[in-house]
């Protein structure tokens, strides 16, 4: 028997089609007779629409139709929704303004949707859009979260006075205040978490289609969760009943969260397809992606840590203003609350934590979940302030962390989470070894001899993924359950088709899920087909985000339990043995203690023949499904250590070494996991050193609206990572798996900034550490010293 397939670095099954250009993305889909859409967007950050005159555009040759918000409203359709209700500390529900798919009388950010122009070609639609006369009355705008609540700030939605959507709290205020009163030492830190623009390689796209014969709609879209898109478009927006709306998310070229949400364009293209009696296609230009994809992060936070005389953390309080942009995107409310405050305990045993979050509207693109979603923001604060505490107390950063680690499990934090398993010393020790920590002082001295400033930074992070126990999230305001479904269909010849509600947009599910099935059934991986991303074939599912495919894999595992149980009953009849004597191993059903056996495919055939078992007791066929609702989050954790060298003459920061040791529980495919870690770290380094979504504070224009000004990390910005793994199997699922997709983006930014501040010998530094900002910090430090 060769090595077990679960745990093997199996080459990705999907890569053949991706690498050879045979992937089928939304933009590759062309329907007979399709027309093309262009969205006319607001050029202003905030303005009243006085009038829209589309008559000239409608009359232009090749133009099919122009629709505005008034047309959409006339069909009595709903607006876009936010599916997670947050309750403020005074008990009032969050104050959400309307989010029309096409603006009705006000535009609230540059890029807001004003009209859809549909034409025979995209070029005609774009030309015609310039013929649409829109009269605006410009209004003052506000883009910065720290200014949104001030008395003079423009009111963006009447429903939310002072642009405040909610004022939320978590933890125990009284106990935390008591901890600060008794503290021997306190540490304060102000932190900005920079706005990021997702930049998935594939821009968003949609093709809406209406079949008059069946009165059914089909939407092809770039989605991480097509079933949720269908549910929202049906139940809340009212495009069509669910059974008359098929949503297909074919190959999707990266999402990072930005393709979870239900956007105006896909809704409007679907609706318009019936109006114009032609399929309607739209694909974003890169500039539109910058303007209108939901952005990430954008928090301003002040944090304070209380410590006793023995350098143990006794209390932690955090106050954050979270910028949610001009409208509340699909899951935006949950990101700076339950995906954020709940992670503020980090890997540490902190008896008292209190967190307050004000969520605000601004005249910027909506902000929602982006790789990590709340957890990077939490980890950044925790790991920055813990590092600062170690420095102020003059204790080695690693030892300070170790002193405060959680060591017994399960561990109930003061902020909801119940950590089920982990070994934080193990990942720290392994990382210290891989990073050759003990020789860092020699490396720093050597760098100094070359005129370079070398610094080291730690991040011992934890995250919560595997979203999530449905009743638990319902009690926190979630409008959906977060279980996952699987259906396993065995064909008469023993092939296995697995229908999963998870969606793969780069994660490699077609391989890892197939490994789980092949390993479990003892069949070749080639005999397994993973089907996802189409509401017509998969019954229902919650999609992929939040490193939650442990839930989908467990659902598959549970369906396989049922397949095995039924196959055993059939095998018993065929082998004329007692059911209790049938064992299943290495893909064979055997009569214990004999040489009588049937291969998996032989039992499959018997299941469909129905000749050798009583069909009155056992139904023919071999097909089972399962819905798995997790009992807890999973808690990946680990230690990242970054070393930087800064050129003080130019301010250029170079990452010279990056070590990551992660505990993802059991690993199905180490190659894919390493790929996820590498991509995550690259994105985290992007946030720490390069990326910054910037709006002009006066005009509200997006300054970083293209790659000329928005800095993406490039290959030559990134080091060769030193990666390692430790394993504490997850106790809450049978596979023992956690999640790995977001860890790199969560853990790495504080490691990088801790290294930068170590190199510069400064306390506070806002991301991104661009050369100009680092150089300016050096000048400030020098000026202060003089």
């Amino acid at each position: 028997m060769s090595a077990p397939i679960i745990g093997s670095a199996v080459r990705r099954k999907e890569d053949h089609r991706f690498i050879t250009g045979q992937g089928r993305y939304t933009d590759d889909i062309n329907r007979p007779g399709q027309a093309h859409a262009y969205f006319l967007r607001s050029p202003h950050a905030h303005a009243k629409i006085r009038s829209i005159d589309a008559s000239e555009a409608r009359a232009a040759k090749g133009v099919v139709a122009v629709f505005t918000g008034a047309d959409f409203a006339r069909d009595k359709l709903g607006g876009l929704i936010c599916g997670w209700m947050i309750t403020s500390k005074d008990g009032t529900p969050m104050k959400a303004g309307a989010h029309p798919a096409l603006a009705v009388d006000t535009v609230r950010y540059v890029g807001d949707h004003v009209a859809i122009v549909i034409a025979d070609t995209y070029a005609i639609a774009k030309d015609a859009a310039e013929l649409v006369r829109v009269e605006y009355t410009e209004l003052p705008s506000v883009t910065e979260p720290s200014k949104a609540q001030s008395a003079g700030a423009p009111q963006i939605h009447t429903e939310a006075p002072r642009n405040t959507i909610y004022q939320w709290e978590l933890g125990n205020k009284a106990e935390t205040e008591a901890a600060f009163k008794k503290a021997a030492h306190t540490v304060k830190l102000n932190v900005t978490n920079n706005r990021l623009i997702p930049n998935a390689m594939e821009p968003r796209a949609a093709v809406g289609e209406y079949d008059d014969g069946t009165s059914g709609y089909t939407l092809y879209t770039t989605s991480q969760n097509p079933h949720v898109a269908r549910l929202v478009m049906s139940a809340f927006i009212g495009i069509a009943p669910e059974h008359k709306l098929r949503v297909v998310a074919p190959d999707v070229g990266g999402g990072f969260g930005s393709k979870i949400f239900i956007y105006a364009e896909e809704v409007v293209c679907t609706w318009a397809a019936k109006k114009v009696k032609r399929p309607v296609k739209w694909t974003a230009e890169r500039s539109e992606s910058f303007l209108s994809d939901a952005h990430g992060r954008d928090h301003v936070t002040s944090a304070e840590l209380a410590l006793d005389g023995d350098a143990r953390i006794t209390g932690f309080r955090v106050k954050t203003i979270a910028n949610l942009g001009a409208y509340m995107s699909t899951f935006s409310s949950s990101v700076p609350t339950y995906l954020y405050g709940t992670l503020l305990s980090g890997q540490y045993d902190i008896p008292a934590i209190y967190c307050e979050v004000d969520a605000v509207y601004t005249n910027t693109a909506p902000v929602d979940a982006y790789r990590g979603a709340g957890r990077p923001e939490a980890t950044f604060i925790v790991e920055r302030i813990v590092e600062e505490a170690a420095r102020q107390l003059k204790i080695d950063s690693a030892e300070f962390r170790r002193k405060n680690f959680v060591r017994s499990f399960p561990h109930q934090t003061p902020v909801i989470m119940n950590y089920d398993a982990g070994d934080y010393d193990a990942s720290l020790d392994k990382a210290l070894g891989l990073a050759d920590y003990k020789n860092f002082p020699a490396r720093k001295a050597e760098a100094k001899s070359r005129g370079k400033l070398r610094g080291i930074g730690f991040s011992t992070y934890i995250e919560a993924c595997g979203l999530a126990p449905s009743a638990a999230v319902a009690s926190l305001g979630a409008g959906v359950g977060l279980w996952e479904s699987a259906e396993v269909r065995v064909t008469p010849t023993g092939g296995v088709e697995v229908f999963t509600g998870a969606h793969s947009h780069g994660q490699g599910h077609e391989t890892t899920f197939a490994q789980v099935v092949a390993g479990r059934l003892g069949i070749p991986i080639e005999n397994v087909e993973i089907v996802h991303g189409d509401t017509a074939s998969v019954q229902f599912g919650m999609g992929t985000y939040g490193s939650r495919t442990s839930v989908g894999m467990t659902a598959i595992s549970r369906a396989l339990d049922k397949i095995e149980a039924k196959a055993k009953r059939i095998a018993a009849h065929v082998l004329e043995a007692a059911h209790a004597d049938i064992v299943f191993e290495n893909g064979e059903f055997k009569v214990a203690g004999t040489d009588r056996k049937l291969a998996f495919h032989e039992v499959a055939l018997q299941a469909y023949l129905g000749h050798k078992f009583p069909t009155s007791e056992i139904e023919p066929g071999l097909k089972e499904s399962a819905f798995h609702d997790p009992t807890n989050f999973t808690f990946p954790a680990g230690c990242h250590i970054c070393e930087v060298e800064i050129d003080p003459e130019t301010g250029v920061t170079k990452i010279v070494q990056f070590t990551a040791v992660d505990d993802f529980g059991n690993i199905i495919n180490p190659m894919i996991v390493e790929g996820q870690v590498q991509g995550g770290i690259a994105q985290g380094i992007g946030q720490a050193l390069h990326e910054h979504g910037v709006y002009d504070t006066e005009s509200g224009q997006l300054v970083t609206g293209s790659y000329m000004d928005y800095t993406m990390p490039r290959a030559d910005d990134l080091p060769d990572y030193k990666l390692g793994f430790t394993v504490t199997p997850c106790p809450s699922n049978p596979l023992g798996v956690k999640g790995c997709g977001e860890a790199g983006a969560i853990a790495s930014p504080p490691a990088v900034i801790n290294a930068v501040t170590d190199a510069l010998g400064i306390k506070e530094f806002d991301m991104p550490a661009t050369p100009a900002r680092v150089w300016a910090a050096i000048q400030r430090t020098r000026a202060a010293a003089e």
Partner: protein
Amino acid sequence: MYQFQYFRPKSLDEARKLFENNGDAKFLAGGQTLIPTLKQRLAQPTALIDLGAIGGMSGIKVAGGMVTIGAATKHNEVATSVEIRKAIPALAELANHIGDPAVRHMGTLGGSIANNDPAADYPAAVLALGATIKTTSRTINADDYFTGMFETALEEGEIVTEVNFPVPEKAAYMKFPNPASRYAMVGVFVAKTKAGVRVAVTGAASCVYRESAMEAALGKSFTPDAVANIKISPSNLNGDLHGSAEYRAHLVTIMAKRAVAAANG
């Protein structure tokens, strides 16, 4: 992009006639700036006159202490030219770091200096090396050619045909790239020639310019130390999201120092 007419003349004469007969025509060389501008609908020419099919506009010749490069020569040809690597290695290196491989296989020397982007690399080489620009109607000295932001001495319809670079004793180009675009945020080209030292700065201001204080200092002593303490005034320099004028001023000194060190090998 908006609709326009497209022409691909076979001769300079034909190109000139097309230009004269089309109201708002633009010449298309490598298109690395013009095409993105058109795609963003920031320009609306009535016609594009593609210079790519005109014979004799492309090629590299080194003779008599002069490197002659045809205006339609692609960056990649300059970057990989064995003759240029021998004669003016700094020029080949400069070309090798313009944009990315796709840009270097499309963009041309003539297109770059006719456009005169304030953050382009070639203008620094042309100015520091004291090159002469040959056009359809005359020869222009580098010192008279670059007149302002995206502005040159070229008249309407005048086309750059070749650039002549005198071979210097020593030269080097040091670029500090804009983190996002990787255009020059500050690029300094230093050249030591028989006629003296020339220092050209690109990226920092609205147009490439010569840094005379540095030229004087390097004329006395062609060493990094000679420029290391020359402070540049930020008053006429660019400031933006990626760096203040003060930062750019500082980088001019640093890049100059490093360029001299590189030139000295």
